[in-house]
């Protein structure tokens, strides 16, 4: 065994597989409330191209720790023989079938793996755990205890006290809620168990942080593309010359909205795939805010901007355009460019506040009429789509791969409201202005690669903020 290897061991049903799923970002790990779901060891190597930096091993839980320890005690005359006794136990019972689980979980430890012992912090400590902890101590490998509070942290402190007598390092790690920075911290702690593990684990941390930044960038691109596609979506139909267009209007508008809903769903799936979430179950029963219709009034109330904010946002984009003009004429316009641009931008935002997309009727060269809806120039719609997308991203980025429940996107107005009442106001000023500028450009030319790139660049730091929120450390930095 050359690279650092860690066997995740403990009582059945204490979250070992959940911890492995979270650290390995693998939602295919079988997790169940039934004990004994894991019956064989399963390896999770962390690979960069062909190089393995470390390996996690999920194991079945201890089933007969007392009897196993009793056997080892009979075969270990002194303390110096304890590690050998553990090895002898595995060799003696490998084929026998009397201690299948103990042999499975101890084999990698006997081969040199470090020990990650997992307990449930919501259950009280009792002496039935001492036999397995003693076995692990006898194995003589570097070890760390992880308190995984499944449900509550009621007994975490008593566990800390008890575990401290068997393990030099004890940490609390909630597999269901541990965000990315917490996982990185834990990996760094693994590296402290043995000197020669420090370097490969530090390298693994750097790789994972770079990979996270890459995923954030990909997700930003997906969101930007989704907004561009949705704003540029057009549906059309053709009718005869003398046919009344009015009955077709609402049907065409509904088709347009359906297309936007489909694109939003597709965009969300793409963002989920950026973070390797492939088996997410949707919440179907309750109407969560993001399951609520994109065009529902509540969506616009929570994620849209007020008329005044729209005017400011539109004016910001217009004023910035005006500043560009002023710069080109060397300021000879006396900054009139920015004033005029700001006025035009602000006025346009006001007028488009309530209309998703225009219904247009145009002639056809050979007779008849072409009815179309879209593309949309509604700036508020762009902000609603972006607000929903950012909220969805926040939930996805925080979701661990141990989570098996439905995606909870529910929201109350207070969750996004700042004192000024809007998610946009919660962004730092430079990020807010970058988003406003990018969206204003995007409205004009949705598939213009410059506007897409600008919006992507504006979104990357916003998405990276989600990894920073937990403990104030920037994502990608130690």
């Amino acid at each position, binding site marked *: 065994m050359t690279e650092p290897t860690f066997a995740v061991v403990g*009582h*059945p*049903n204490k979250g070992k597989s959940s911890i492995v799923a979270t*650290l*390995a*970002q*693998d939602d*295919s*790990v*079988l997790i169940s*409330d*039934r*004990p*004994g*779901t894991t*019956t064989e060891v*399963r*390896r*999770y*190597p*962390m*690979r*960069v*191209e062909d190089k393995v930096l470390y390996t996690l091993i999920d194991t079945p*839980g*201890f*089933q*007969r*720790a*007392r*009897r196993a320890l*009793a056997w080892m005690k009979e075969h270990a005359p002194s303390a110096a023989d304890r590690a050998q006794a553990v090895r002898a136990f595995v060799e003696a019972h490998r084929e026998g079938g009397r201690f299948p*689980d103990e042999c499975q979980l101890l084999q990698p430890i006997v081969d040199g793996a470090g020990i990650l012992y997992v307990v449930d912090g919501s*259950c*009280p400590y*009792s*002496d*039935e755990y*001492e*036999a397995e902890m003693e076995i692990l101590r006898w194995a003589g490998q570097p070890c760390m205890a992880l308190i995984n509070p499944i449900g509550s942290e009621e007994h975490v402190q008593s566990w800390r006290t008890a575990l401290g007598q068997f393990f030099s390092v004890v940490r609390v790690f909630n597999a269901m809620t541990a965000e990315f920075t917490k996982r990185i911290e834990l990996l760094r702690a693994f590296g402290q168990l043995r000197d020669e593990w420090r370097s490969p684990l530090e390298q693994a941390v750097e*790789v*994972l942080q770079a*990979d996270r930044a*890459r995923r954030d960038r*990909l997700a930003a*691109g997906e969101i930007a593309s989704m907004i561009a596609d949705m704003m*540029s979506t*057009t549906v059309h139909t053709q009718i005869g010359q003398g046919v009344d267009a009015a009955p077709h209007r609402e049907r065409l508008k509904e088709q347009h909205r359906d297309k936007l809903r489909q694109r939003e769903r597709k965009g969300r799936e793409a963002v989920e*795939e950026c973070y*390797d979430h*492939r088996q997410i179950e949707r919440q179907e029963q309750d109407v969560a805010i993001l399951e609520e219709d994109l065009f529902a009034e509540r969506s616009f109330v929570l994620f849209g901007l007020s008329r005044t904010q729209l005017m400011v946002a539109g004016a910001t984009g217009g004023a910035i*355009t005006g500043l560009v003009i002023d710069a080109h004429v060397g300021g000879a316009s006396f900054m009139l460019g920015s004033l005029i641009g700001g006025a035009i931008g602000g006025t346009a935002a006001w007028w488009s506040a309530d209309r998703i997309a225009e219904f247009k009727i145009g002639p056809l*060269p050979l007779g008849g009429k072409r009815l179309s809806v879209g593309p949309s120039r509604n700036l508020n719609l762009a902000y609603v789509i972006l607000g929903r997308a950012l909220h969805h991203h926040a939930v996805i980025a925080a979701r661990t791969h141990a989570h098996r429940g439905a995606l909870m996107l529910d929201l109350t107005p207070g969750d996004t409201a700042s004192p000024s009442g809007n998610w946009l106001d919660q962004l730092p000023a430079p990020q807010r202005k970058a988003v406003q500028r990018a969206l204003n450009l995007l409205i*004009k*030319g*949705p*598939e*213009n*690669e*410059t506007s897409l790139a600008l919006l992507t660049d504006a979104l990357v730091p916003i998405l990276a903020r989600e990894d920073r929120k937990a403990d104030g450390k920037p994502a990608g930095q130690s």
Partner: protein
Amino acid sequence: MAARGPTRPSLAQLTDLATQLRHDQDVDHSTLRQRDRRIGRELDRDGITQRTARLTGWLTRVWPTTKPRPGDAAARADISVRAIATVIGLILGIAAAAGMLVYDGRNPVNVFHMLGLFVGVQWLLLLLTLVAFVPARWTAHLPGFIPVVALQNVVTALSPGRLQGFASRWFTDEQREAWAQTLAAGRTHQQLFGNVHRWLVLDTAQSIAVAFNLGAVGATLLTIVLQDVAFVWSTTLQMDAATFHRITSVMSTPWGWFWPDAVPSLALVEQSRFFRLQQGGFQADAAMLGQWWPFVIASMVVWGLVPRVLMLLLARRGRHRAIADTFLHMPGVTQLEDRLNAALVETRAVEPQARTAQPDAAIRSASAADSDDNAMTGGCVVINWSSVPIEDAHVPAVVARCLGARTAAIHPAGGGREPADDDALIATLAADPAKPRVVMLVKSWEPPLGELLDFLQSMREALGRGRAITVIPVGPTVAGALTAPDESDRSIWSRMLGQIADPWLDMADWPAGETP
């Protein structure tokens, strides 16, 4: 070593890329990641770093060599379209010139007509075409009241390049399908692919225009060579010969310095003015009237053909740039480049996890009504398994509530005790002549381990058939009192005990709403 790809993608490669990216949407993400990173590393080894070359190199490696490429069919369709367009242009040019040069000896050819059609109209169409050439990144910044985009759409809609659709009826099925795929992407992403479509139309239109002018020049030359043609100039406008001479002199500027014969003299202009009313009295030297031909040819070439050739070159350049631009900005390319270039970081298990079938057989439930005579008279023996947090003094109340039975004795087992002590307890229970029911109190929040199930099986072997054993899972202590087990925990215990398939083993439920 695979060949390095070109740095400028072709229409064929654009079509192939769009097709492959569409196909990849149905492929599992991790499969794509592994495949594309492998290709990316091959490209790194081959020293291919330029974006377009990497993407074309990827296409070469991804597309099965045995499968025909839609891009090849699209390229052949494109060539067919331009060939057909060229032929149509030639025919139209020849026909237009032939029609203009009809001369039966009575009605000379009006130079104004020739200049009007082969220079004037050409320049009008040229100006409209120039509008269509304005790049999208410029139109995006123009004020909305300048209808540049609308004008571009009209020009594109009316462009003879749209004969592509007409020409497609002569395509093979394969070519038609490939062409439709390329254009279908234009409908889905109108602005991105629409740019390619627009330049294809413009390119085809310029091909037609160049062919038209070539055909017209060729037909005019041929007519001049094979027949005697007399040229005059005739207009209703109040224009004297001197003015027209000035106009022709200015028009002759590009060639006048090396082809003076192609510059009409004042005398020629004066003598070749024609009014239909004076047809019978028109006196002019027929040979002199023929001297207009160099000027006519030079005008058709310099003011008709050459600009169109330049436009064709511009259109070709615009087409190549649009294809290159779309190639790099097609939806899916960013994700593809990420898969090609970013180091593959994998943390998931390599092997799939095997699911083990877990039986759902539930244990039989015990109740107070099941208490047998021994339990009612002699009392039960209670085993506190693994230190359930209950004082011995409270145990009888629990047993009475759950089973309606009396407690005769309480013994600890499991937990931190030695296994030998558990074996001794079993022996003691087996030796008890009263053969009381055995009741085990267990912690519901801890799963039943193998050692508990072993203990139950060993106890059954020792106690023999018929002796009742009842398990009572208890819930956590709250405010010093035991609670009922959580339903999910109770269910786990029921299923796990059911696996033992012991007909004299049952589990007692906690009485609803009761605590000891």
